[in-house]
């Protein structure tokens, strides 16, 4: 895949339209690397001039901050801000709502001011501006439900962009009984991704997966790497991985465009 790093842009004295912030899950998690490639292939197919930081990118510090380790968070943030400001970055797009939230809401207080956009919003902008088009409804009549990521939805009020993409794909969007502002968490936020759940009657991701399965949808669309893991595990737990797929919205678009 032809991916240009920020260092290469800088060496040529050029600057990209956007910086694609890949995130740790997008870089290391096998499942989410497929989302990273899907999104990058969409950008490439539309000749969007984008850069990545490559090995210069590091964790935003989100999980450390939410678990309580403010020192570690701020160390990460300061280092990242030095890199981002060093390159004069103005606009960042990321496929991770946790990175999105931290870069957008928490870096400004520490000296990092950027326009930060979630990839669902960016893709919607590409559709609105006519750059991204679909012919024939690849998903016509296909039942898809969308699971709201807390860090995208309640945390930042992004509810409509991911849904607009599914509607643009001609999918039959079915809402779960808890959605948008009352959407149920997948169970991974606030550092839970990195520990076993506390004792209880049930795992949160199983509860949420049951709601998703109740809709009868054959695809559960997500926009977050942690939700991806939790919902996929939930579907496996319910032994439905044969007929129900968990997919990121960028993957659905890449498939519709024949890019995967």
């Amino acid at each position, binding site marked *: 895949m032809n991916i240009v*790093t920020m260092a290469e842009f800088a060496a040529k004295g050029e600057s990209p339209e956007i910086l694609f912030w890949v995130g740790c899950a997008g870089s290391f998690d096998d499942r989410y690397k497929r989302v990273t490639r899907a999104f990058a292939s969409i950008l490439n197919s539309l000749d969007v001039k984008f850069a990545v930081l490559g090995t210069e990118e590091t964790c935003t510090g989100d999980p450390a901050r*939410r678990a309580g380790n403010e020192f570690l968070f701020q160390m990460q943030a300061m280092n990242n801000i030095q890199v981002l400001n060093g390159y004069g970055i103005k606009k960042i797009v990321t496929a991770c709502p946790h990175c999105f939230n931290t870069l957008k809401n928490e870096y400004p207080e520490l000296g990092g001011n950027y326009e930060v956009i979630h990839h669902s919003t960016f893709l919607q902008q590409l559709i609105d501006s006519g750059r991204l088009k679909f012919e024939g409804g690849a998903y016509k009549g296909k039942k898809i439900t969308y699971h709201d990521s807390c860090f995208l939805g309640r945390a930042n009020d992004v509810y409509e962009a991911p849904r607009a993409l599914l509607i643009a794909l001609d999918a039959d969007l079915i809402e779960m009984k808890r959605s948008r502002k009352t959407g149920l968490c997948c169970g991974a936020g606030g550092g*839970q991704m990195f520990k076993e759940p506390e004792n209880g009657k049930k795992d949160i991701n199983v509860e949420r997966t049951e709601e998703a399965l109740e809709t009868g949808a054959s695809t559960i669309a997500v926009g977050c790497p942690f939700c991806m893991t939790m919902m996929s595990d939930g579907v496996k737990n319910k032994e439905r991985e044969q007929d129900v797929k968990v997919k990121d919205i960028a993957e659905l678009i890449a498939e519709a465009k024949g890019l995967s």
Partner: protein
Amino acid sequence: MISQIAFVLVLAAAIYFIQKRFGRIRKNINLGKNRDFKDQVDKRLNNVLLVAFGQKKMFKRLIPAVLHLMIYVGFLVINLEVLEFMIDGFAGTHRIFAPFLGGFYTILMNVFEFLAIAVLVSCVFFLLRRNITKVPRFFNAEMKGWPRLDGNLILFTEIILMIAILTMNATDQLLQPISDHYPTTGELFFSSLLMPLFAGLNESTLIVIERFAWWFHIVGILGFTIYITYSKHLHIILAFPNTYFAKVEPKGHVNNMPVVTNEVKSMLGLVSAESSAPPTEPGRFGAKDINDLTWNNLLAAYTCTECGRCTSECPANITGKKLSPRKIMMDTRDRLEDVGNSLEKGGPGLNDGKSLLGDYITKEEINACTNCNACVEACPVLINPLEIITELRRYVAMEESGSPASWNSMYQNIETNFAPWKFSPSDRFNWAEEKK
């Protein structure tokens, strides 16, 4: 004359106790750390208007919203009548506004009576919801004992206060044709339906009943005001300031710790000479006790009316974990009251060997939070239990190094590999080379 003296004494006693309690609550809230709220005044005022006055967030659940609206409007409007009660009480007059306002007085009293009926009916429905249909959120673990009794006492008190008003107006109307002391009010529809109950009683008996109802209502209101300072019902006052001081940033934003920023900057050599002056005593990182929280968190604890909408939306609670956002607020308030009561008696206050974290809220509870903001979104008065949970986690992580072991591994991975998982940082860009 005797009744005027009695009125002044009762009022003076009530004011003494009310200001004493509010003074204590104020001192308790001021145990919290200072924080500036001069920013985004427009947004804050907007919250007060829409969320507190306008009840906007109540309407996420229609049935309780309508019932609550009746009581809320009743509370605001019927209390106008207290003005007349006060003047009559001081001056020894009776319904002093009636002759002046004439027909308008009749309309006003009928509106009050309609609202009294609306409040009464709503309170009966709320009692049924609490005790007969058993809405689940009123039956969580933290709702045993006093909190449940408190809820029922408030509803019961409001019902009898409304019955007192209607009784007063019914006997008053019977007295108007036979006693000069009772100016005419015009027909008061709802209380006139009660008149048959008192028909046939002689004048002096009617006066006794009317006076009793009048005194019962005014003493009841004063007594209730003292009661609510010990009760979850304080939201009727504190909801207004609480919505003003509520978080105005996006919900995903976590409050920064400038103390840490200074230290990190000096560690990274980013500090200029003038700002690297020796820092003042940094205090504690995060919160172990109530005095480590900012005062607005403590105001929020007093504002909580234990409706439990937060807990009923909490993914951890729904799936049987110990965490309940409502309990976080109730525990914070309980700790505040315990410390305040101790200080009131000259006791050790905060130094009683206990702390909010450990003795009231356990690590198991705060460790179960997913930071999903469902509780914050659910609260009708913009209380933010997540801010308290984050501060407690900060104390555990930075002062005790007591985070769960797997979080400590996650920290270590970030420190050494710059990712929360154990991958080599040099592999970060491999995704671009790999085939699926």
